[in-house]
């Protein structure tokens, strides 16, 4: 199975790094969909099947919190796994995100192994 992965981050650097992790970890990807903010992500989610969303929190236009809230408010996206990759590391934020059904919260800078393991769990794949 090949996955369609959505990466939501206003930094192209971070989007590139995350894509490289998939390639290094040999996770089969059908398509990477890059979005600069939550609004762009929602527009695409309405049109395309996505297997995993990896999102930042601080972004212009629409932040990661608003995106996750919107995803969780809609029945069709209930099972969509979401990973947060952010510079912010407050415990309160982490607890809130967990209650919103976020699979994992990684703080930047992350090690490739951390995000690889998190992706593997989210996609129901064994960690290799």
């Amino acid at each position, binding site marked *: 199975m090949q996955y369609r992965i959505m990466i939501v981050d*206003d*930094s*192209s*650097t*971070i989007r*590139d*790094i995350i894509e*490289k992790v998939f390639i290094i970890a040999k996770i089969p990807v059908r398509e990477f969909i890059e979005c600069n903010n939550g609004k762009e992500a929602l527009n695409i989610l309405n049109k395309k099947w996505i297997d995993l969303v990896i999102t930042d929190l*601080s*972004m*212009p236009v629409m932040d990661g919190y608003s995106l996750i809230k919107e995803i969780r408010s809609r029945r069709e996206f209930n099972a969509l796994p979401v990973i947060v990759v*952010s*510079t*912010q*590391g*407050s*415990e*309160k*934020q982490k607890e809130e995100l967990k209650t919103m059904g976020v699979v994992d919260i990684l*703080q*930047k*800078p992350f*090690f490739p192994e951390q995000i690889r393991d998190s992706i593997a769990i989210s996609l129901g794949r064994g960690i290799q």
Partner: protein
Amino acid sequence: MIPKERLNIIHTEIGRVIQDATFMLAEPATDQDATEGLSVEPHWAHISYSGSAEGNIYICAGDELARTIAGNMLGTDGYDSLPPERVIDSFKELANILTGRMILLLYGRQALFRLSVPIYFRACPFEFNNMSDNVLMYNCEGMILNVILTVKEGDSFDKDKSIDS
């Protein structure tokens, strides 16, 4: 002002974060001129934070270091040929990463903050003269990276605000 003892710990910890993010050795430097080796118009990135307290983080580096950082973060050889927008984006992202960690070190894991979108600019290194608060200098494989922290007057950094790493 941040107590010197606390600032020393932060200086070391932020050095580790720079290393993790940029894959470069980043040694805390104290005995060098903060403007040494900086080009006429070094690269700057600025982020402000607000919430339990308010402040600003600036990072500043010369062109060669900014390009090296971008090349390392992106995992590309030949960083001389990187387009300017990739260098700018990587520099802004480094500021973002350092701000997130700096806030944790200053205020602990319980405090909630909102971070501004990073702003990039190029300016004369003598801007340092107006930023005397706290300049953390790093020797990154022979090139200087400065991390400047300005905190709003009235913030206290007492022992109750534990440093989490």
